[in-house]
Structure formats: structure tokens, C-alpha cells
């Protein structure tokens, strides 16, 4: 929903929601509303983890339990104030979120599912078996409910409170996810390597997503425990974990409104079918199976599709200006021309018996364009991966701009000023062109988590500035009119250029380009020479891998030749061209028996 529409719709919906409990006096209906609110709160945070960061957890009942038992134990056993206990439940669940995040970060796919299932079951079993503390099946009685003054909440108060909490959660999640955090979570979801390459710490953002989801699930647990004034181990089941996931996926993961739709619809289905418990589970099964089938993006996705057809105007993205000021690197980022920008010494990397990088030393001079060439399998991309921190070298050192970066990981290296593109494109394909470039700006957007979540002015100002610069960068590369298109729908040549735009947005001092001309037609290749020259003229040093020798010879100040992982020659283009070792590597030597194994498909060395 656009900003303005939300501005008008939100107060209206808020008034309607807070008025609703007064129009209803039936306890059962009030309870249904309460539960819908509870599930919404849980799912809104869980959506950050599942829908945005793409980490499917099947163990969040464990975090719900952490919140529920914290509230129960603190009030029933220690006699804490119920409000303090309620918020403590959120904190404790958040801590548990870190506990589950740490092992989860090391695994993906089915193993991640297993780790989270394991976590959920361990919590469930602890609650069941450790009955001295948690009461087991008998449970914990006399949990104190929230209260106003001395008066404990009545059912209507609970509904009001939960609705209020839901509205606040919605606002917080909306401002958190609409800016740099939302983009970074989605980036982690779509392409971890690319996220790291633009300075997004995959580790950090996964942990944050786990914590956010843990806090909301924990608060949901505390709400249920305090409203029932009772909790036992039957509340905490694998089925509940599945239900949380169902709420998000059925409603629509990755959409702010998905969890809302999911919570409302599923709670109503639940209430409606409560009379036939068998049928209830049957329906869940069918929903899991067929909702995904019919609505891969959930209810929210399906409604958005319909809405787009009926009211196309409501869904237009803000228009892009037709002209913007020229993109300028900030002065402080320009460097001395003379000093070497990057010096790598004795880099060595082996995979078993294959040695793609064998004792390679290179020096990159500020302001120059360097080319890395060599036959297929010479180890060019591996060298680039080592320099950008994706692959750690076995031996050797890399000093960049006076700092040792050998041990650093990708996102730290990006922050120090090395940007890169990929041979096999790694765009955030489902996002717009503009969002891709905004992600490149990520390392420079220093507004923290809280200002973003609270929607403070500092966050929105920075977002606006980043957007302006992103548009300038797009203009610089001739992509301005494509800003609102989906990155994956661009023609191949433009996708390559967009990747370069994204890398430039990180304000690199050194730009690494891995085969920027691969798949381009001669016209596009020719344009690319001009683009690289303009990048160099901005004071950005370039190191590129390329097979198009005409491009290499036209643009390079310095050429480095690799063969079988070792550097065999370097120097000015003409010098390298005449080097007998280079000719031998590409074409094979006459005196030796079989030709060199990896002959270029297009041996363009004349």
C-alpha cells in the first residue's frame, strides 16, 4: 500500500478495530478475536524470519513456550508484577531466539528444518519432563493476568489490549521492513553471496530476524498464559510450530499484510471447525497442501494480483524523475594516485589436488584499469573470490589501502571499499532495479535498528538521500528509465550493467568485474569500454577478468596473465601480447607434444 493510502487507512482501521470489542458481548467471539490478535502478533515477527529472511523454522512453538513459561513462572512462583513479567517474557524469548539462531546459521534447507524441529522438541520435552519447575502435564496454575489498576483484565480488555499491541506491531514492522532492513532481509533470502558482496552481514541479519520473531512469539505465549491464567505442556506442540508457519505462508510470507490475513482467516476457520476436531486437522492438512498450490504467494499475493487488475493506479510505484544531477563520488573518497591500492603476496589456494591459485602476487595501482586474463580454468575467478573475501586463501596476505584484509569476510571487505560483480549474475532478481542499487548503498546507511523500526526522521531522511543517489548512479549507467522495473526482467546486457551499478553504489575504491562482457553483443561490448573508462575517470580503480581481448587491449593500463593458477606474465597490454609464454598458454607450444589442454574458444590474442 502506498504511503498516502496507509496514512488514511490506518487510523480508520485502528478506530474500527478498537471499537469492535464493544459491539460484541459474546465471550466466545471475544475469545476468537483475542486469539486472532495473538496469532497476528506472533506471525508478524515470524514473517520477518520466514517471509523476509527466508529461514523456515519449524520450532517456534519453543519460543512461544519460552515466553509463556517465563510469564507463568515469574508471576505464579515469584509473584512479579504481571506487566513486568509480560515484558520479561519478550526479553527471555529474544535470548532464546539467539540460542536457536546460532546453530541455524550453519545449516540450510532440510538441515535447518531439522535444527529448528529439534529445538522445538527439546523445549517441549523439557516442559513435559522437568515437572518440578514447569509442572509438566499438570501445568502451572494461578498465573497472574495483566491488570489495570487493581482490576484484572476482563475478556474485552484482553481483546482491546491485543488489538492495540497488534496495531503497534504492524507500525513497527512496517517501518522496519520498508527501508534498509527489509531490503537486507530479502537480499539474505535471495542470494547470500551477493548480499555479502554489498556489505550486508548475512550472519547479523539472520540473527536479528530470529530475535524479532522470537520476541513476538514469546509475547504471544505470555498473552495466552496470562489470559488463561494457566499453562501446561500440552500448549507446546510440534503442531503449533506448524500452525505459526501456516499462518505466515497461507497469509503470504514477505508481505506486511500476509500474517494479518493468515491470522484472521485461520483463527476463524479454527473457531468454526472447533466442533469437529478431526475435520479441523483435516482442513489444516488440505490448506497446507492446496493453498500453496493455488496461491504460491499466499492470500496477500492473490489479493494483490486481483487488486492490481481492478485498481492499477493504487499499485504504481512513485515515478522516477527524468533528469537527475550527475553522480559524484564524495571528495574524501578520492585517493592518492601514486601509492599501490592493493598488494597481494604469495596467495595460495588448493582444493584437494587442484591448485587454482598458486603463489600469486599482484599489485593494483590506484586509478588504473587492470585486466586479469588467462585460459579457462586458469584460476581467475578464484583469485577474484579471494580478493573479495568469498574464499579464504590457504596462505598469503592481502593489504588493501593500508589495511590487512586477508582474514576479513566479504561484507567487511566491501565496507572497506572493494565492490564486485559476478560472472554468473547474482542480482536480487525479484526486486526492482532501484532496490538493487539501494542495497548497494547499504554499507553507507548507518542509521541503526531502533530508528528504522520506530520510523524516526533520521531513518526516512537517510532513505530519501540514498534513493536520490541511487537514481544518480542509475543515470550514470544509463539505467534511469528502468528504475522501477523488476531486475530479473531486464535484458541480459542490462542486468550485467545493473550489477555494476549495484557495486558502484557501495562506493568502491577498487571495483572487481568478473567477465563484464560475457554474453554481450559487439555493440554492448563497445559501450562497456566507454562505461569502464567513465568509472575510471571517477577515480575508481578497476580490476577485470575478461576474454574479449579487444576490450582488454582497449581499456587496460596493466594486464596480468594467469595459467594453471600461477601468474605467468604481466605488464602493459602490448608487452603481454608479445610474451611467448602467454602465446603458449593460449595456443600451445609448437615444440611440446599435445596442445595445451584449455584452448580459448575465441583465441583473440593476435
Amino acid at each position: 500500500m502506498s504511503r498516502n493510502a496507509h496514512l488514511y487507512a490506518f487510523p480508520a482501521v485502528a478506530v474500527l478495530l478498537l471499537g469492535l470489542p464493544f459491539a460484541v458481548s459474546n465471550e466466545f467471539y471475544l475469545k476468537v478475536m483475542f486469539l486472532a490478535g495473538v496469532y497476528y502478533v506472533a506471525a508478524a515477527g515470524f514473517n520477518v524470519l520466514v517471509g523476509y529472511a527466508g529461514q523456515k523454522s519449524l520450532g517456534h512453538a519453543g519460543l512461544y513456550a519460552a515466553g509463556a513459561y517465563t510469564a507463568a513462572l515469574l508471576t505464579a512462583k515469584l509473584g512479579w508484577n504481571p506487566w513486568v513479567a509480560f515484558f520479561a517474557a519478550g526479553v527471555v524469548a529474544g535470548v532464546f531466539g539467539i540460542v536457536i539462531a546460532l546453530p541455524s546459521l550453519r545449516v540450510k534447507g532440510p538441515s535447518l528444518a531439522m535444527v529448528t524441529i529439534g529445538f522445538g522438541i527439546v523445549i517441549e520435552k523439557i516442559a513435559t519432563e522437568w515437572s518440578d519447575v514447569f509442572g509438566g502435564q499438570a501445568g502451572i496454575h494461578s498465573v497472574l493476568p495483566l491488570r489495570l489498576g487493581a482490576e484484572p483484565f476482563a475478556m474485552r480488555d484482553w481483546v482491546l489490549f491485543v488489538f492495540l499491541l497488534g496495531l503497534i506491531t504492524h507500525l513497527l514492522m512496517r517501518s522496519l521492513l520498508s527501508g534498509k532492513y527489509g531490503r537486507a532481509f530479502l537480499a539474505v533470502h535471495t542470494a547470500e553471496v551477493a548480499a555479502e558482496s554489498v556489505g550486508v552481514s548475512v550472519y547479523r541479519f539472520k540473527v536479528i530476524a530470529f530475535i524479532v520473531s522470537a520476541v513476538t512469539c514469546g509475547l504471544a505465549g505470555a498473552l495466552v498464559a496470562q489470559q488463561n491464567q494457566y499453562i501446561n505442556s500440552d500448549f507446546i506442540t510440534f503442531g503449533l510450530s506448524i500452525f505459526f508457519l501456516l499462518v505466515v505462508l497461507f497469509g503470504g510470507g514477505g508481505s506486511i499484510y500476509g500474517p494479518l490475513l493468515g491470522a484472521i482467516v485461520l483463527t476463524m476457520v479454527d473457531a468454526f471447525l472447533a466442533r469437529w476436531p478431526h475435520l479441523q486437522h483435516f482442513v489444516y492438512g488440505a490448506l497446507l497442501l492446496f493453498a500453496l498450490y493455488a496461491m504460491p504467494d499466499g492470500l496477500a499475493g492473490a489479493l494483490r494480483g486481483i487488486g492490481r487488475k481492478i485498481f492499477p493506479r493504487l499499485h504504481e510505484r512513485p515515478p522516477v524523475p527524468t533528469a537527475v544531477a550527475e553522480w559524484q563520488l564524495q571528495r574524501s573518497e578520492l585517493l592518492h594516485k601514486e601509492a599501490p591500492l592493493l598488494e597481494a603476496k604469495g596467495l595460495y589456494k588448493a582444493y584437494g589436488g587442484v591448485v587454482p591459485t598458486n603463489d600469486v602476487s599482484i599489485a593494483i595501482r590506484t586509478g588504473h584499469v587492470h585486466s586479469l586474463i588467462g585460459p579457462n580454468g586458469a584460476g581467475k575467478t578464484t583469485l577474484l573470490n579471494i580478493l573479495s573475501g568469498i574464499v579464504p586463501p590457504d596462505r598469503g596476505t592481502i593489504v588493501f589501502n593500508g589495511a590487512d584484509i586477508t582474514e576479513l569476510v566479504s561484507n567487511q571487505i566491501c565496507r572497506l571499499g572493494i565492490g564486485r560483480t559476478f560472472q554468473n549474475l547474482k542480482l536480487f532478481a525479484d526486486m526492482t532495479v532501484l532496490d538493487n542499487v539501494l542495497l548497494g548503498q547499504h554499507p553507507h546507511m548507518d542509521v541503526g535498528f531502533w530508528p528504522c523500526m520506530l520510523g524516526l526522521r533520521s531513518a526516512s531522511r537517510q532513505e530519501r538521500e540514498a534513493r536520490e543517489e541511487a537514481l544518480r548512479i542509475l543515470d550514470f549507467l544509463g539505467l534511469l528509465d528502468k528504475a522501477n522495473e523488476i531486475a530479473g526482467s531486464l535484458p541480459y546486457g542490462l542486468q550485467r550493467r545493473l550489477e555494476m551499478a549495484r557495486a558502484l553504489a557501495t562506493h568502491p575504491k577498487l571495483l572487481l568485474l568478473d567477465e563484464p562482457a560475457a554474453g554481450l553483443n559487439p555493440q554492448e561490448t563497445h559501450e562497456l569500454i566507454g562505461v569502464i573508462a567513465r568509472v575510471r575517470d571517477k577515480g575508481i580503480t578497476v580490476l577485470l577478468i575478461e576474454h574479449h581481448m579487444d576490450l582488454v587491449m582497449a581499456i587496460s593500463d596493466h594486464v596480468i596473465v594467469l595459467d594453471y593458477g600461477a601468474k605467468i606474465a604481466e605488464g602493459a597490454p602490448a608487452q603481454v601480447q608479445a610474451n611467448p609464454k602467454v602465446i603458449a598458454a593460449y595456443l600451445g607450444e609448437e615444440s611440446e607434444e599435445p596442445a595445451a589442454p584449455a584452448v580459448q574458444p575465441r583465441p583473440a590474442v593476435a
Partner: protein
Amino acid sequence: MEAILQAVLSGLALGGVYALVALGFNITNNTTKTLNFGQGEFLVAGAFIGVTLVLVLSGKGHTGVLQPEDVTIVKYLTGLAAILVVLGILGVFLYYTAVRPFVGAAGLAWVMSTIGFGIIIQNTALGIWGPAPLAIPSPLGNEVIRVAGAGILPQEILIFVVSIVVMVALDLVLRKTKIGKAVRAVAHNKNAAALMGINVPAIVILAFVVSSCLAGLGGLLIAPVTTASVFMGLVLALKAFSAAIIGGLDNPRGCILGGFMLGLIESLIGLWHAELREISIFVLIIIVLVFKPEGLLGRKIVEKV
């Protein structure tokens, strides 16, 4: 000492069931990169169909009570045949409704859809048999056999022997036969396999049939030891899944190793503190995955950049 031997023996039997189900996970994972998260319910279906067939052959209703003399080896084997047919069909059905539409789709949709399929099976079973567990005596009788002082049930020996035989047979089929070679080719590279004239869809369906049948077999084998309950599937399948992950989901021998390891650990810990069995197993899994995410015998996947 005797107690430990006892625990080892029953751990091996339990491990046999885990290993069978884990092997089923491995087969579909290798061919489609998916697996059935509702496998536990398939196991339940296997157990109940087997028990029911024995009941019917003994002239009793489908929720009747079986006497030891009702359960003969012939009836038990007939039950097995029925299981293989029904579970095989279920496997095909699962593939077409819950797996094929979602293979390759983003976001592990197949995890949810197979869980959904399992829930539907579980509730169908609840509708037919109700929540009460069904007991079935072992076809080999209940006389405890003494091995160096430790007692072991004939059914436990049966489980162990059958699971070993099935696994060796599968291993031989995979390595020595033409169809096994085709399965391995599909596991390595679907497109290349298709280009070599292998009928990839048929192999994939076969994988789901075999996987489902293994779960059904596991159900039939374990029913006389634990009594069959509609709710027993989830935990059994999760442990089998853990076994597969610990051993290495992509390696059939790893899955078998993981299954027996898990059975042994569970039964040895049960000796010490019965209530800690499940907790310690799942804590162990989390720890193993942290230090060796690809499993003990699994292959490390290197993402190409």
C-alpha cells in the same frame, strides 16, 4: 553389564527401523532434493494396514483384539504385501499432489505440502481406527531369548535381520544393476541422465514408491514392539530424519550408520535416564549439525560463485 548388552540389542533393533526410514529419505532426497516430511504418517499407515489385514484374515473387525495364535507368519507376510501395494500407491499419489508441483519452487514449499499430506493421512487413519492404539503380537511369539544374560524379543531380532537384508539388497541394486545405475545417474544430474535416454520421471516415481514402502515396512516391523498408535509417526520419523541428517542425507550408507547410531544412543541413554532420551538425541543433532553441517558421511557442498 547385562543391562548394557540388553540396551545395545534393543538399540540395534530400534536403529534398524530408523535406518530403513532414513534410507527412504535418502532415496527421494538424492533423486529430487525433496523428502516426505509426512513420512511418519506413512509409517503409521503401514502399521495399521498390516495389523488390520491380519485382523481381517483372522475373521475379526478392523479394531479387534489379536491373540498371539492369530498372528501367523503367513498372515504377517500377507499384511506386508498389502502394505507394499497400498504404500506404493500412496507414494505415487504423494509425488503427484505434494511434491511435483513444488519441486524447485522457492521457499521449501514442498516441506509444507508434504506435512499437509501427512496430516490428511493421519486424520484419515483417526477416522478409520480412532485414537486407541492397536496391539499386534509378534508372529515369532513373545518368548524372550537369552543372549549372554540379556533378554531379547524374537521380533527385535526380526527387525534387525530384515532391515539389514533390505539395506544390503538396496545397496546391491543401486550399485550393480542397470536400474540402480539409472537412479544414481538421476541423483547426479537429471538433465544429463535424461539426455542419456533414462526415463527420469519414472525413476523419480520409483524413488517415492520405494521410500514410502520402506516407511510402511518400518511401521509393520515396529508395531509388535511398541503397539501401533496413530500418533507414533511424528517422533519416529523425526528421529529417522535426524539419523539421515547426522549420517549425511546424500549418502545411503551414512543414513544407515546414522540410524543405528541413533538407536543405540537412544537406548543407552534410556538406561540411564529414560526421560532424557529424546532431549539428548535432539540436542546431539543440533551439536552435530553445528560442527558438521553436511553430516558424518555427507559431501560438503561448495557453492559456485
